């Protein structure tokens, strides 16, 4: 009998953008094709003018990067200020509160959230490096079909998308 095996349940795709304008264009592209933006998250470090905050805060209501619902601001020692918006925020907060993945795998809050949506260790390091280099991450996390559709819309010769299954 097979033990410890499971059908893939965590599907995500991640794309690294050099500028916030490019992320905006990618989101416009998803909107244009009626993609459900509830699956979309953005993580960015480029808020150097922010006052150093020791904890996160979260506000409710709207859904979008510049909106109020599912946005969070963290101070992560490795990155400094970190802004997240979208579906990944509850996962980040949960990871921050429980630190289960951090305890188990030695991850910080961000890496634990990545791990929880199915991103493997090797890719986590890559995305952390991208954030340290002031790049932005656009993450789509959800059912396989949603992720495949997002990947189809975002992946091109000039913009690479990586798909992670766990």
């Amino acid at each position, binding site marked *: 009998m097979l033990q410890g095996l499971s059908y893939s349940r965590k599907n995500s795709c991640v794309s690294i953008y050099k500028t916030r304008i490019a992320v905006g264009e990618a989101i416009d592209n998803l909107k244009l094709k009626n993609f459900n933006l509830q699956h979309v998250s953005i993580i960015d470090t480029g808020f150097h003018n922010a006052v150093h905050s020791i904890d996160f805060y979260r506000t409710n209501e709207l859904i979008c990067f510049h909106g109020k619902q599912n946005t969070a601001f963290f101070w992560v020692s490795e990155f400094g200020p970190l802004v997240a918006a979208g579906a990944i925020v509850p996962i980040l907060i949960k990871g921050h509160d429980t630190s289960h993945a951090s305890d188990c795998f030695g991850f910080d809050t961000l890496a634990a959230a990545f791990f929880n949506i199915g991103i493997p260790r090797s890719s986590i390091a890559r995305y952390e490096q991208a954030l340290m280099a002031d790049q932005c991450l656009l993450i789509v996390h959800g059912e396989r079909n949603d992720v495949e559709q997002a*990947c189809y819309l975002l992946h091109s010769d000039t913009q690479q998308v990586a798909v992670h299954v*766990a």
Partner: protein
Amino acid sequence: MKRDPGYFNHCKQVLSHSPLFERLEDGLLDDMLSLFRRDTWRRGVQLDPIVFQERFYLLIEGRLEVMRINPDTGRSITLSLLGPGDGIDVVTLLNTQPHEVTPVAIDDISLISVPIQDARVWIDRHPEFNRNFLPYLGEQIRQMEDLATDLALHDTMTRLARLILRHIAPEHPDGRNDKYPLTLINDLHDESLARMIGSVRQIVNRHLQYWRKQGVLHKHKFQMQVADLESLHAYAGDALKHSEKNKKAS
């Protein structure tokens, strides 16, 4: 993929050492890789077979077990164990029929993938790829033939010996200690080995322990190595004869 030059070069290096792509023209490999995207699957994940009707995957890092499972009994058999450079379910490149296989990631694996239709079009456009593709398919058929033959004609000890012999790393023996390292199966659990020979964990464990006592196999830091190749060949050829000899000797 070209936008990620580090990973692009890594993939190129892995694929250029695999039977499916070795000695393929550099430009051809570049052209092919430009169609692919990057994927990862976490260890233990079991993929829905429908995925392979939609995309063609090439393994870059890690190992993947391709199995068939009886849903009623839960019994399973491993049809193939794939490693870096292997294509997953290459049969889907040849026809569009649903294919009942269950791939399971043994390690965290890295892959590249392309829509299956694009892969078929690319192969049509580049018949020179068939110089590698057809022998690769031939090898897969041969492996399946070996599996069927082993299951039908040999006992578990012979099957296990033959499985181990098929996975001896080609560039050895290791000069330091005259032991023969294994590829792909070197650190597999007994249960995984059992699935590969149509047996159960307890039987495989018994054979492996026996061979370790006999000095045929050596295990160090979870890595299995062959210490006495001749004896293992003998077990692979006629295990019954050996066990009879041993009984008489004892």
